[in-house]
């Protein structure tokens, strides 16, 4: 199984559909009961009508017999909603070797979608953003949703720069229903800013997971002599010496990761660091764990 989840192997698979199927079929799959009530055929209980309830759910037969107004509730099989917020800024196109961070993020997203829709029958949606929301696919379980999501992922090419503050305003509008929000990004931003931007999602009852995707070279960069480095988002150039990359940079990155982890966990969010040479199962396991905890 591990072999099929190896990112370098997955990079050879061009179809996201097949890729997601390969990943997820190789992963643990299973249905479980939803803790939330839905609107399917299996009856769960009656609940007294309170003003504002949808009249369509009133059991009129019972009302006719008892003249009491009850709502009929059913136990639904799929009522979780997965929304993947994919960072498609320019920094995501960095790579020191296949796969690119963006591709790795796509693999994760595709696998999650496949797992959610095909195996869990959850509703899944996608938000692609950089400094603003570039694409939004509403979470749904409808026929063809998987294809739409995959198409959305295909279209998500790195572009512009990351800005969490602007698109997050829109996120709150899109995510009015509770669910799982997974943010896949490299998070090149101040951790406080990130947490402050994402925190509102959590207030809406969403389980928020941050998948921090980084290239191994971004954590432990190897430099042969001094080099001119170009920022992929800003095009800014500076000359950096290997000694700095070996020492100070690593300290700073580690501190950044640690602070991000600490702050997100303090805000009730989950954080998962993923490097592009890691297998995808870590991400899937995180999702399932999160989903189980939600039940």
């Amino acid at each position, binding site marked *: 199984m591990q072999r099929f989840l190896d990112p370098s192997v997955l990079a050879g698979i061009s179809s996201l559909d097949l890729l997601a199927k390969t990943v997820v079929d190789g992963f643990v799959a299973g249905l479980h009961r939803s803790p939330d009530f839905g609107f399917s055929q299996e009856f769960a209980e009656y609940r007294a009508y309170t003003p504002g309830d949808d009249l369509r759910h009133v059991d009129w037969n019972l009302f006719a017999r008892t003249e009491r107004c009850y709502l009929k509730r059913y136990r639904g099989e799929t009522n979780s909603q997965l929304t993947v917020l994919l960072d498609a800024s320019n920094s995501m196109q960095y790579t020191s070797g296949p796969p690119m961070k963006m591709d790795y993020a796509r693999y994760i997203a595709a696998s999650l979608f496949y797992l959610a829709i095909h195996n869990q029958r959850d509703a899944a949606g996608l938000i692609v953003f950089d400094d603003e929301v570039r694409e939004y696919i509403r979470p749904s379980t409808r026929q063809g949703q998987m294809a739409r999501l995959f198409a959305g992922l295909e279209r998500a090419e790195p572009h512009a720069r990351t800005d969490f503050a602007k698109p997050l305003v829109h996120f709150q509008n899109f995510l009015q229903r509770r669910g799982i929000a997974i943010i896949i990004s490299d998070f090149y931003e101040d951790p406080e800013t990130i947490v402050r931007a994402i925190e509102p999602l959590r207030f809406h009852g969403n389980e928020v997971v941050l998948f921090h995707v980084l290239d191994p070279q971004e954590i432990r960069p190897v430099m042969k002599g001094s080099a001119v480095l170009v920022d992929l988002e800003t095009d800014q150039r500076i000359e950096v010496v*290997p000694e700095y990359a070996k020492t100070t940079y690593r300290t700073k990155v580690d501190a950044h990761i640690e602070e991000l982890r600490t702050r997100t966990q303090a805000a009730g969010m989950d954080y998962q660091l993923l490097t592009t040479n890691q297998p995808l199962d870590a991400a899937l396991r995180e999702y399932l764990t999160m989903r189980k905890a939600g039940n």
Partner: protein
Amino acid sequence: MGFLAPWFMGGLAALSVPVFVHLLRKHISIPRPVSSLMFFERGTQSSTRHRRLRYLLLFALRFALLLLVVLAFANPFVRRAAADTNGRTLLIVLDNSFSMRAGTRFADAKQKALAQLAAKTHSQKAQIMAFGGQLEVMTQPIDDDAQLRAALESIQPGDGHANFGELGRAIRTMSETVHGPIDLHLFSDMQHSAMPANFADMVLPGNVTLRLHPVAEGVAPPNWTVESVDAPAELSDPKDPKRSRVQAVVAGFGTPAASKSVSLLVNGKVIASKKVDVPANGRATVEFAPLDVGYGFNRCAVRIEGGDTFPADDAGDFVVRRSDPERILFVHAAGDPRSALYFDAALQAAAHASFVLQSVAAEQATDLDPSKYAFVVLSDTVVLPSIFEHALAQNVAKGGSVLIALGTDAAHHAQIPLWGGSAKDAHDYARSGSVATVGQVDFNYPALEQENPGRDNGGWAEVKVFYTVVVDPAQARVEARLTDGTPLLLEKQMGEGHLLLLTSGLENLTNDLPLHPVFVAFVDQTARYLSGSERLSGSRLVDSFVALRAAADPVGSVANVEVIDPDGRRPLSLSEARTVESFRLQRAGYYQIRFADGRDAVIGVNPDRRESDLEPMAQDVQQLWSGSSGSGATQTTDAVPVEGKTRPVSLWWYVMLFALVVALAETALASGYMGTQREEV
């Protein structure tokens, strides 16, 4: 400074490579994209500056390496004085002959020699020699300045007689082994009397350049000396007017006519003084008689009182040994009393020796002890009593001597007593109606010695020989021959002793030798030679040799000899005292010697009186000598600096060595630079 292969300088074009690589080539760095510069800082300045410095150092090393390699191929050279580099050997010869004791000659010469040595370049090889009575090699050709200087400092003035002919011969011999050019610097007073009879003896070989450094300037100072002393070495009767006298010749060199006071000293005490008028540049004889000395060895000297510029030669030393007359055993055939008569008459006529002849017939010699006699004469005694013959042989082996004269009886007996050989034949010239005369005579032989033999072969040409016994010389040395080649006088060594064989008789039947004056001289010299008294006292010249023992000593009976020089030191080591056969008398003064046969001697040793003539060689002769040597370079009166002849010395080896060092430094620096690129991940 120059280049032996300047066309290799074209390789300097290669220097453009490091210039291009390090200075002209633009450093191309491909920008490297990163996700964010959020965690990067600009930290390049100090590092780049440091690296630029390293680059510049690396560039300098590479530049220097290429430059040095090109220079090495171009073969740079420097010009150095030819004296250093041409392999010329500096040969310093310091004259330490007796005449160098005059004034400050020796000190001046040594000072100049030291200055010449100091002027030598460090790498040049030099050799030090002392030139007195004989050439003494102080060092081999070496370049150790300290050792050379020490050798030069150790030379002390000697008492020998310098001879430039000897110097020339020694240098010619040396040049056969040393093939390189030699700069010979001679520091000497350039005495005229040191010149050999033949100028050709002084000429030096072609590879030797002679530079003379005369230390005696101007006219030679006047000098009186005791030129010769004629005194008896042995004296038995001080009242004998013929023998008990001392004749000394006082000579003046460059002197005006003067009256000099001359003293005779015996054992340090003046026993007589006389005034003598010495003409200008002339000689005068002074005689002291009688010579009253005690028994034993008496150290005598004739001294000129008053002194002069060269006081060292104002005395002539000699030793007189007073003893009772020595006996000579004369053994003759029963019917031959005539030979003893002639021999005794000749012995009494001789002036110097004091011998008493004891004549006996052969048959009566049985009980005689030969060791009690100075020597033994066997006159035509073909048969000896066996006891006496045995005792005589033992005596000869221990140092005794025998004169054997063969008369007419010898031809009838094959065996010659003691001699060891046999008579082969006899030449009876009288019977054939002719006579033989003496053809060859070795006048250097002590028994026949004559300084200037006359045209009549020193008197021997008149001698007629009627009868001789023919003897095979075998190991004997022939000292005189007849005109037909028949040996007349032979000498053979036997143990420590000598055997002298006269192949004719001592009477007037076999020859008429006893009738000629030369017979007296012959008997006198033979007696002195065979008795050994000649070598026990008297005087010798410096650098003469004294035979201490016979050449072939039997193993197991080695006797020590002992020599005490004028300073009271023993110049012979213990091992030398057991083996040495002869000894050179190097110093002036009195030598005490004990020979291997146990006899003691005291000998007065005087410098060669030619050293007293301080007249230097004429200037033109000096120039002729130096001009005839080697490259024909002339000399002047002072140290002549070496001409400005130079020769190129290649430096490529040093340049390559330096290039190697630079290459190693470049490798170390470059590998260090590369090492920073191999960072750990």
